């Protein structure tokens, strides 16, 4: 029997997508969790947002969400970035009864583009990441059919060669975001365009991380308490972005003073530079609890 959807004003079913679409995604999510890091193909419906604007993440969220959930949506770490606003408005319109929050600690479900929140995620929270390129091997092999075999055999030799060539040319691996990361000792994933700074948060996380690529039609997962190792050589360890100034001092956020967050570099009208937390919720919380600029 087809379940009769609860209708929202405007005639759309709760969660916008029909139940068949949601069920397919739900089945695929479970398989993705059972095979950590493996990209499960799915048929991927068109959404009223263009491909490339987070339709994969959105389909995951719409398949997961219920009226018990509290949702946070961020882009570049901010709840107010245009992409986040657009997605949140759409979900508010099609999922009546869902609660929204800007606070990471209050959310049961978080959809994000390009950042993992600064506040460590807790058990039973779910993070949904928007993914443009699901496959870490695409940089060395354009054919998907060939990449599937390489992944199945955990044959990442050509990826290692590319990293090695980087080191020979530039003394370091030049990959900045989308750093290839090995999950549970087998599949290497593209963790989406999160900065290197956020890659360590995948390792032994308490929360479930789900990755949705709408245009490429793949779902993958890093379960909680799972090993996630960025690919590196023993003599060239993985390094996160440096926020140290020319004196070797770690920069602080100009608003809350935190020396522990990923900082956005802002070019001011007078040509000077400002650094502030990318994560707006974190910055708000730090500011409220008494942090301040030290300048």
């Amino acid at each position, binding site marked *: 029997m087809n379940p009769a959807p609860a209708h929202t004003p405007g005639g759309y079913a709760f969660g916008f997508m029909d139940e068949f679409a949601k069920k397919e995604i739900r089945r695929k999510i479970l398989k993705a969790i059972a095979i950590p890091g493996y990209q499960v193909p799915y048929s991927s419906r068109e959404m009223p947002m263009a491909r490339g604007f987070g339709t994969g993440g959105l389909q995951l969220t719409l398949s997961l969400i219920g009226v018990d959930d509290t949702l946070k949506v961020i882009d570049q770490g901010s709840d107010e970035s245009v992409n986040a606003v657009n997605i949140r408005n759409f979900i508010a319109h099609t999922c009546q009864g869902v609660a929204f929050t800007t606070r990471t600690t209050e959310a049961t479900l978080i959809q994000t583009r390009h950042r993992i929140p600064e506040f460590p995620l807790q058990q039973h929270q*779910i993070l949904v990441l928007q993914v443009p390129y699901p496959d870490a091997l695409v940089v060395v092999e354009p054919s998907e059919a060939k990449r599937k*075999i390489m992944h*199945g055999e955990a044959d990442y030799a050509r990826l290692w060669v590319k990293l090695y060539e980087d080191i020979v040319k530039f003394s370091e691996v030049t990959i900045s975001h989308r750093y290839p990361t090995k999950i549970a000792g087998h599949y290497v994933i593209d963790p989406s365009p999160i900065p290197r700074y956020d890659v360590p948060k995948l390792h032994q996380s308490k929360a479930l991380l789900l990755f949705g690529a709408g245009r490429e039609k793949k779902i993958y997962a890093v379960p909680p308490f799972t090993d996630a190792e960025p690919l590196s050589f023993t003599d060239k360890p993985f390094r996160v972005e440096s926020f140290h100034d020319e004196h070797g001092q770690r920069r602080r956020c100009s608003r809350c003073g935190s020396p522990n967050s990923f900082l956005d570099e802002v070019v001011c009208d007078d040509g000077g530079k400002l650094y502030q937390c990318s994560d707006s919720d974190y910055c708000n919380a730090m500011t409220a609890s008494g942090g301040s600029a030290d300048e």
Partner: protein
Amino acid sequence: MNSPEGVWSAVAQQQIFRATLTAMSSPGEIVRISADGTERASIAVLAALLDNSVTLCDYNGTLDESTRRFLQAQPAECKKANYVLAAASENPAVDFTVALGELAAPEAGATLILEGNRICASPNVARSSGTVDLCLKISGPGVNGVKTVELSGFRDQWFHRRAEWVADFPLGVDLLLVDAENLVCIPRSSAVALGESWATSR
């Protein structure tokens, strides 16, 4: 036309799915699957996940005709079906096999739902009444350390066979253990050791 009730409603299916998701991402954690309480957990989970694009093997024929129709899944033999429902109270037949997937498509490995008497966290009440048959120690992705689950009415051969089926990761099968109300998931990525069991009247 009446709205579908109970486990056939969209709202219930979303909740059942979320409980299943919790169980799959935390192997060994027992979740309660209670829609309206009138359907057993196995049917609730199947109702939430299945439609006419997947296949089901009702190995012991425990589903009635109307449930089978509502599930809409195409029937298939156990070695090919996407979803297999089997009674855990009997050991699997010698020729019982399930789909394990392929290297380029490991997701084709089946989901096996095993129905037994009771699933308890460890330590538990049932132990004192001497009805625990098996004790599973589960570790691996999703588990912080080791999680122990005590089962009653689940024959041990299922877990020996599982070990064979999941020996070549990423190929394998993903297990959903259910009693009347509860669910525990053991994905192929989990390591399972059979612990001490209290032998009861077998």
